[in-house]
Every structure is written in structure tokens, then in C-alpha cells.
């Protein structure tokens, strides 16, 4: 049963990611990315990280992608022009090279031992994450608050019409 779920949502994630590349209009790419994020969130649930799965939907699919969709809506972009790019041959070389790399990676990872999602003692519960986040990882946590402040200021400064 878990295997059916895994294959379905893995195929959905890969299909949505490929759709991000294939679509000409960037709004459809953004919507496919939202689909991929929710599919990955379900994979997190299969790995018993349920708090992280919900946080991924709230933060990534519900806030960051809203930002992307807003900007695309406001800029009112046309479909991508297919112009006289010097690098048109890029996709015909890149994709075979990518597939070759993929074959390398798959043959290395195929026989990694151990299965995921079988641990009974670790469940990514909020209590466990909170415990670790506020004791062992307190310094990075405080530094990320500084990071967000800087990003906030940077975004406001860059998007202003006249400083």
C-alpha cells in the first residue's frame, strides 16, 4: 500500500517538475511547481515527517509560491519567445548528458542498504523538532531570524521605484 502511494506521488512529482520545464508560459510552470511541492510533501508524510510536510505546504506552497504567482500576475508576461538564441542546441546536448548522469547516479544508489520510513522511534513530531531546534540548533535558529530580516530589507529596497 505504501509502495503504491510512493510510486504515485513520486511519478506526480517528477511529472510536475518536467512540466515546469516544458511549459512556455511561466504561470503554468509556477502552478506545476505548486503541484510538485504538494507531492513532495506527501512523500515527507510517508517518511513519517508529518510536521515538516505541513510546514512545507504552509511555507513553500502557500507563501513562497504565492509570491511567485503575484509577480507573474503583476508583470503580465507574454508567452516565452523562442527567438534566435545562440544556444538553441543546448537542449539537444543537455538532455542526453543529463540522462547519462542519471544512469550513473541510479547505478550507484540502487543497492544502498536499509529502508526508509521503517524507524518506529523517530516520528517528526513537533515536540521532537522543537526540542532539537531550541537546544542543539539554537544559534542557527537565531541567525536565520537575522537572515530573514536582511532579506526583508533587501526586497523592499530593490522593489521601490525611487529610493
Amino acid at each position, binding site marked *: 500500500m505504501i509502495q503504491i502511494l510512493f510510486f504515485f506521488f513520486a511519478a506526480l512529482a517528477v511529472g510536475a517538475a518536467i512540466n515546469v520545464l516544458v511549459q512556455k508560459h511561466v504561470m503554468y510552470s509556477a502552478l506545476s511547481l*505548486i503541484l510538485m511541492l504538494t507531492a513532495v510533501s506527501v512523500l515527507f508524510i510517508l517518511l513519517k515527517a508529518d510536521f515538516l510536510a505541513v*510546514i512545507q*505546504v504552509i511555507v513553500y*506552497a502557500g507563501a513562497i509560491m*504565492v509570491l511567485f*504567482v*503575484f509577480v507573474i*500576475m*503583476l508583470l503580465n508576461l507574454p508567452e516565452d519567445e523562442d527567438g534566435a538564441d545562440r544556444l538553441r542546441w543546448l537542449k539537444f546536448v543537455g538532455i542526453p548528458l543529463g540522462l547519462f548522469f542519471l544512469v550513473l547516479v541510479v547505478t550507484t544508489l540502487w543497492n544502498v542498504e536499509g529502508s526508509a520510513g521503517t524507524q518506529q522511534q523517530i516520528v517528526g*513530531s513537533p515536540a521532537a523538532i522543537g526540542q532539537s531546534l531550541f537546544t542543539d540548533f539554537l544559534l542557527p535558529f537565531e541567525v536565520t531570524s537575522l537572515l530573514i530580516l536582511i532579506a526583508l530589507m533587501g526586497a523592499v529596497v530593490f522593489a521601490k521605484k525611487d529610493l
Partner: protein
Amino acid sequence: MIEYLTSSEFVVLMIKILVIFGGVMGALAYLSWLERKMMARVQMRPGPTRVGPFGLLQPIADGLKFLFKEDVIPTHSNKFLFIAAPVVSLVPALLSFSVIPFGPSLQITDLSVGLLFIFAITSLGVYGIALGGWASNSKYPLMGAIRSSAQMISYELSLTLSVVGVLMIANTLSLGELVAAQQNTWLGIIPRWNIFLQPVAFVVYLISAVAETNRLPFDLAESEQELVAGWHTEYSSMKFAMFMLAEYANIVTVSALATIMFFGGWTGPMFGPELLRMALPTVWFLLKVSIFIFFYVLMRATVPRIRYDQLMRFGWKVLLPISLANIVVTSFIVAIS
């Protein structure tokens, strides 16, 4: 897997889903009747009275009208997104009823992160509005959609932060346990509801919930006088009905969350014979949710609209600092005691 599908547990789950879903859809339809009647009475006129006694068959007449109306899709709109937007708005609104406890055993599923699940699903509902406005390819819907989704994501912050105080007291994210933690009483009379422990959070939650569901006084993005009809200008018949259903479902969801977190959910005085005792928690829950819905409709009928910049300023500069201060104070008190 086949033995699970035929087990009694699955059948009970299906019955629960049918009961809750059917009840919710019926309630949404009659919420529109309640709203029209109440607004009419506040404005000293009778409201719908022709269709059935007291106008009680009006929602059915409205539903039939929506089914038979012509479905207009503007020529220059983005057809796929135009048709998808009401669905993207309605599905998250209905999905949040799967974790709400209507009674001690009348909850479809008690997720360990149930409260966050509802917030996650609500934040996905923003896309229905944004895409609906953008796909209509017209200026009023686009403006309405941008304003409305900016308002929703701004008030989501204070909505989520205002309940952190309750979570610190109850130490759990699952809704069933939140309700169970409020079951006893102090001194035998005063129930152990979180409203007595977190009054500021309750006020912040209520105001954020009104803004989050785009209701008056925060509905500048869909008001008739300002923006024709906001993001659902170009929609007709069933798609418009789906947007309306989604809005009412959001109202019921935030009312249900308010009762669960601050007013004890289905807890209440138990009395009477055994059969009555089984139904009484659900009755208390529905009574409390109805009080909140009543309050929402009354507010729509009485309060004037707030301008958009005042709205955004209020959300970011007033509600967000208050909810953060509430978290700090509550964490001090919880840490000390």
C-alpha cells in the same frame, strides 16, 4: 487491503464522511438563507418569504437557478485556469472539515498536526482567488484578486500566531486533544475554556478570521460599490456558486476553529438519559458554531467597510505585534508555572 475495505472500521469511516459532508453542504446552503434573512431584518424588511414557509426553500430555488443559468466563459480569458479556479477555491475549503471534531467520536480523522493542516489548506485556498482574478483577463477582477490575496496572506500571519498561545497551554496540535484538554471545570462551575486564559488571542483571532475570509468590514476586494464584484466579476452560474460555497465554508471553518480553540469545542454540561448524552456534545458544538456564524452575519449587516490601506496597516502594524506580544507573555507565564 481488501480486508481493510470490507472491515467495520472502514464502513464507520464512510458513514462519518457521509454524515459530516452531507451536514456541512446542507448547512452551507442554509447559511445563505440565514444571511439574507438576518441582513433583511436588520434593514427592517422581511427578506425571502415567497418560496416555502419563511423562505426556507429559497436555497433550493437558488441552486436550481444556478444550474440552469448560462455558463459564460469570456473569449479572451485563460480557459483552463478560468474553469479550474473555483475548484481550487472550493476543495481546500471543504477539505478542512475532515479534521474538525464534531463530537467525541464524530471526527473523520484526528491528525497529530490537525491545526496546522487546516492552516495549510487555508493557505492553498488563496490560489483560487488569485487565479480566478487573473484568468478573467479584465481589470476589475485582477485588481480585486491582487488585493484580496494580499489581504489573505497578511492576515494569515496574525491568525496563525494568535493560536500559538493556546497551543502552548494545551501542548498539542491535534484538534481532538485540544478539545479534550478543555473538558474539566474550575470550582465545579466555570468550564476550563481557553477564552478565560487567552482573551487577547481570542480577539486577535476573531478579527483575523473575519479578514481572512474576506467578510465585511474587510471585504473591499469584493464589494459591489468599489470593484463591481472583485475577482468573481466574470463568473456565472455554477462556478460563481462554487465561489460562494467556498466563502461560506471558510466562514464555518473559522467559526468551528474558534469554538474548538477558545470555547471548548463539544464540551458542555451533560445531562439526561443515555441516548441524549450521546447526541449532546454535537448539539453543544453546533450551538457554539452557530453563535459565531450569527456574529459574522450581524457584523456584515452593521459595520462599515474599511479602506484597503487602513486594512493592511491594521493587519501588519497592529494585529501582528499584538499576537507576538501575546506569545511572549504566554510563554513567560507557562514557563514560570
